[in-house]
Structure formats: structure tokens, C-alpha cells
């Protein structure tokens, strides 16, 4: 994985965590979900391409990640859901304002867990929590 791809993936993981915090504002759940669905693939897409990173770009992304990691107020997290992708795009050189194809595995930090058996008594509960 290239330095660019690694930086974009770290940013995407941090963004997912920020969205999880922002989602706790119930009245804004839809907006948070819409923002995340739009920007998460765009952040990951910044990692594609072979152009080398400019000096300080990876450090810039990591400092931006450190900044959003300090946020504990979900309302402030919502403010950053729009700002963070653009800060990362400026650092890595790219654009997050166009629709990007969801990358494989987008929307989570790991592979999707298997669907529960339809007959399993735990199935309903597991689906409820998704």
C-alpha cells in the first residue's frame, strides 16, 4: 500500500469514528448518515493514484486526525464531518466534492459479519443493532 493510500485509509477510519460520535445527535442522524455516505468514499478515493505526496502531507493528515480525535461533543463532531474531508483533500491534493465510487469494504472498518441464520433466535436482535 502506498504512503498516499495509507494516509487516506487512516483518515477514513478516523472519519468513521467521528461519524459514530455525531450519530448520537438523534435529530441529525439522517444528515450525519448522508454526509458520511458522501464523504467516506471520497476520502478513500484520495488514496488512489500514483502521485507522490508533497512534503508534510502525511504529517498534516495525522495532525488533522489528532484534532478530530479530541472531539467529545457530538454537535462539534457534526461541524467537522463537513470540514475534515476538505482538510484532508488539501493535504493530499485532490477533491472530495465529487461523488466517488464506494471502495470495497467502505462503510466499515472491516469485513461485514456474516448474516445470522434466519432461524436463529439471535437473528432479530443482531439485525436490530445494525
Amino acid at each position, binding site marked *: 500500500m502506498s504512503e498516499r493510500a495509507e494516509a487516506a485509509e487512516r483518515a477514513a477510519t478516523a472519519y468513521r469514528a467521528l461519524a459514530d460520535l455525531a450519530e448520537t445527535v438523534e435529530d441529525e442522524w*439522517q444528515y450525519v448518515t448522508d454526509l458520511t455516505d458522501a464523504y467516506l468514499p471520497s476520502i478513500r478515493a484520495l488514496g488512489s493514484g500514483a502521485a507522490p505526496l508533497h512534503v508534510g502531507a502525511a504529517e498534516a493528515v495525522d495532525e488533522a486526525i489528532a484534532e478530530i480525535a479530541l*472531539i467529545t461533543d457530538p454537535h*462539534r463532531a457534526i461541524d467537522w464531518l*463537513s*470540514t475534515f474531508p476538505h482538510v484532508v483533500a488539501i493535504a493530499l491534493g485532490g477533491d472530495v*466534492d465529487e461523488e466517488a465510487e464506494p471502495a470495497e469494504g467502505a462503510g466499515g472498518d472491516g469485513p461485514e459479519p456474516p448474516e445470522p441464520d434466519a432461524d436463529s433466535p439471535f437473528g432479530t436482535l443482531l439485525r436490530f443493532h445494525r
Partner: protein
Amino acid sequence: MRFQDAARDARTVVYAGIQADPLVAQVAGLLVGATPAERWMARAVMNGERTEPEIWRRIFPSLFGEGPAAGVRDHADRLLAASLAVANRGEQARSSYRGAVVEELTAQLLARRGGTVKRERRVLFDGVPAEIHPYDVTVESPGRPQVYDCKWGARGINADVLNQLDDARAHAADEEIELDVALVVFDARRSAEIRLDRSTARRDDTRLVALETIDELGEARP
């Protein structure tokens, strides 16, 4: 149709004090001549948790690294310092400061076109109950009056704001006056459009001006 100063209550008096703070005009003045990257930097800093300038210089190497010319770095440094001054006002106050900055930026850009730019004004129409909420910025030219509602973030867009803007436009049209109505959002156009996509309020004739396109406020309208 006519414009009128908004009534002043305790809240508006406090807010007027923030609007009059020289820091607001300073930040807005620096944003007028800023690049898109500088505007994102200012937004991030004024939303930010940390207030050490070195951290923000590391987050924006394209503004503060070895690449940019001295003039670019100097302008970015002045904007960073002013943005940090807003961030240092504390959580409660800085929210008001940020709103005031967007209004002042809008007013300064519109003033480049000429015309009478005013703040906190209501619009009255014959036979229509007056809206309580004043418009943040107005351009009160007889031939092409304009009203602007300003938001720091796309999250501030809601049905009440959109309805008030469109109602004003419609009432003006009833009086055969073409009133331009616009929403200025110091945030990404994409985020604002995401917000608008879920709204059922009428907005077909309301112009959206976002962070990336805010310079158009200072350009002559067709």
C-alpha cells in the same frame, strides 16, 4: 415592499456588540482576499479544539510550508492568528463570532458591487404580517433589491430559513418587484446540497452561495 430596522431586544443588543468587535471585521477582511485553502483553514481553526498555531501550520503545509511565496504565507499567518483569536473566545462566544464573521464577509463582498448594504433588516409587504427574524444582510437598491441569510455551517439550513426567503421573494413578486434571495453558507457546497436534498421547503428560486463560490458575491450579477 420596504425595508425596516429590526427591533432590538436584549439578545440582539449583545449580538450587536459582537458584530461591532473589530476582530469580526478583521477576520472577514482577511477572508475576502483569501484562497479556498485559506478559507478552509479558517473554518477548521474556528471550529477547532487546539489553539497552538504550530499545529495548524502543520495541518496546512500548502499554506505554511516551504512551497508558498512569502506573501501567501504572510496572509495565511495573519488569517490564522485572527481565526485563533476567535477560537480563543470560548465555546459559547465563538459560535456567535463565527456567525458574525460570515455576515460581515458577505457584506464586505457585496459592498464591492456598490449599492446600499445593510444589516439586520426586515422586509415589510402590504397586507402581510411581518416576519420576526430579520435578514442578516440586505442590498436595498430600488432596481434589484436583495436579501441574504448567512450560516456558518450547512447544518444551519432549515425549513424556516428556506420558507422565509421564498415567502419574501413571492410577496415581492406580488408587488411586481424582483427580489433576489440567497443563502450564504460558509461550508462546502456539497454539504449544503446534502442538507437541502432532505428539505421539502420550496427553494427553486433561492440562490445558494457556498464557501467555494463566495467570491461571486462581489461580482456583478447578470
